[in-house]
């Protein structure tokens, strides 16, 4: 199967994730969409790695997972604290600062 298809899939996932970020209100969901984008990147990396026949891509993929995990830690911490003080995880509610 033509490896380029993996790339198409990756871009598709990436776009879906991005769209989710743009349209979803709940911070958690938005965050999950970001994760989806990261996974799309991973897919692309791995696909390229196979095509080039070297391991760099796959290594990056591993790093990405770690980073994603770290982001989850930090992100959830922030979102939860926000939720606790506002009793809402909607990103639209968090708009004290504007203009």
């Amino acid at each position, binding site marked *: 199967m033509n490896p380029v298809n993996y790339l198409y899939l990756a871009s598709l996932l990436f776009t879906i994730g991005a769209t989710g*970020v*743009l*349209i979803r*209100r709940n911070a958690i969901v938005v965050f999950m969409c970001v994760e989806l984008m990261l996974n799309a990147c991973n897919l692309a990396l791995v696909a390229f790695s196979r095509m080039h026949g070297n391991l760099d891509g796959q290594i990056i993929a591993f790093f990405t997972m770690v980073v994603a995990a770290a982001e989850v830690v930090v992100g959830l911490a922030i979102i939860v604290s926000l939720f606790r003080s506002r009793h809402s995880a909607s*990103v*639209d509610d968090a*708009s004290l*600062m*504007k*203009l």
Partner: protein
Amino acid sequence: MENLIALLVAAPLLGAAVLLCGGRRLDAVGHLIGTALAAASFVIGVVLFADMVGKDAEHREMGQHLFSWIPVEGFQADVAFQLDQLSMTFVLLITGVGSLIHVYSIGYMEHDERRRRFFGYLNLFLAAMLLLVLADNYLLLYVGWEGVGLASYLLIGFWQHKPSAATAAKKAFLVNRVGDVGLSIAIMLMFTTFGTFAFGPVLEATGETGEGKLTAIALMLLLAACGKSAQVPLQSWLGDAMEGPTPVSALIHAATMVTAGVYLIVRSADIFNGSPDAQLVTTVVGAVTLLFGAIVGCAKDDIKKALAGSTMSQIGYMVLAAGLGPIGYVFAIMHLVTHGFFKAGLFLGAGSVMHGMNDEVDMRKYGGLRKYMPVTFVTFGLGYLAIIGFPGLSGFFSKDKIIEAAFAKGGTEGWILGSVALLGAAITAYYMTRVMLMTFFGEERWRSRPTASPAEPSVEPAAEHHGEHAEPHPHESPRVMTIPMIVLAVGSVFGGAYFSLGDRFIHWLEPVTEHAHGHPPISALTVTAATVAVMVIGVGLAWLQYGRGPVPVAAPRGSLLTRAARRDLLQDDFNHVVLVRGGEHLTRSLVYVDHTLVDGVVNGTAATMGGLSGRLRRVQNGYARSYAVSMFGGAAILIAVTLLMRAV
């Protein structure tokens, strides 16, 4: 000897400096210092004169170079003096009459607390006037020119607390400025044409340039002359200038300063000779003015304004003469000198009358004063005879010569100018007789009436002693005032005869302003006869009107012409409507433009910036997702553009 020339100017200048900076501690002696220095200057003048007469006609001109004034690449202006017969004539006239009037003022200004300053100003005037006539180049002359303007400004407005006086002073200065523009442009033209503006080089080089240039220069000089000598169309200030103390009117606005224009024209003879057109214009200006002034003089009830009108018209004669070229220059100057005598005398007389009449100036409230102030009456009378050209008196000689010369111009011009001059002579006789009769003859209209109308509060401190509403007690003025009048009277009686017997004056001035004998189409005798005839007619008319019957205290409405003449032939109204009003509108609208348009653009830009900012910041709506949108869009554009750049 040359080195004395500077002293002529220095003496009165020193006086001015001392008196004006000296402060109150000089109040006691101020007038004496001033008079002394004026007299000193006169003495120096006489000494120089003696020396000059000693030499033969060709070597009489002398000069003194003081220092280089404005040395700039290609532009040399020096402070240097030139004393020739022409200047000398003026020096003697200025310092002589000036000194007399200083003396007169001692009495006239006695009760004025600011007498010291008055003398300071008078000295300043003398200095400036002498600088004017002694300068050896036009730029330095310009300094004196504006200097006398300043002095006249200060003196007209001497009683500054009187709004009318302040306004008159301002008006005089402004109108003169217009003339001065003419002079400065003339100087620039000389500079660009001849590369210099010293009398000698310029006047020698006139031959080397075209007539057009000369005409331009000459007309500009004429404009300047009109301003200073109150010739139409710049005459309007002279009447108002009578707001100043009477000695000022006598010295500045009759004898000396106002004749500076004539001096300028005669001094620039070569330029005018080079341009017949300019000369024609000059004669026309003179002719028009001499009628204008005369007519105005007939209508005024204010004695000083009547005399002012007459001054205007007499100077008209001089300008006319000067415009005639070599046949007229000498007579212009001669009339200038004689006029200096009798007009100064007349003004001093008028002042003396006012002095005795609680400063009343309205001749309709005079009458029969000859009994009360005999000296004034006599001196004034002699001056009167002189000015109307009573045979044998000075005015007769000088004016008659001018009328001859006018006819001698030849052609229709000659006839027109000559007859105008004749007509002027008739009118002169008329209005002067009117003044004479209304003031010294007839019933005593000043009795049993409230004095000076409260509307115009009397201003000279002298009056305050008399009290406002008390009936005036006409009295002769003190010696210190009468003596100068007498001296001037003598001058105005014999001056003319002395000058013209054996053409003394002609020979005296010929080396400077070469003289040509005019040949009038009609014999000189006829002209003289005509002159005398019209004079008699004028006197007669006046007698019929003011001598026989009583003169009404309230001025009758009078004919249209009279009413126009009372208002200076509406010329002021014209100025007011066109210049003053128009100017006010112009400035007001410009102020508006500056504020709304020029400034508005600036503030407008700031405002639009603010508005733009206000609109743009709405994008920052606080919603994280919309921020994400802008990022996403941005990324998309970034990618698209990069790809497109490559595609194209």
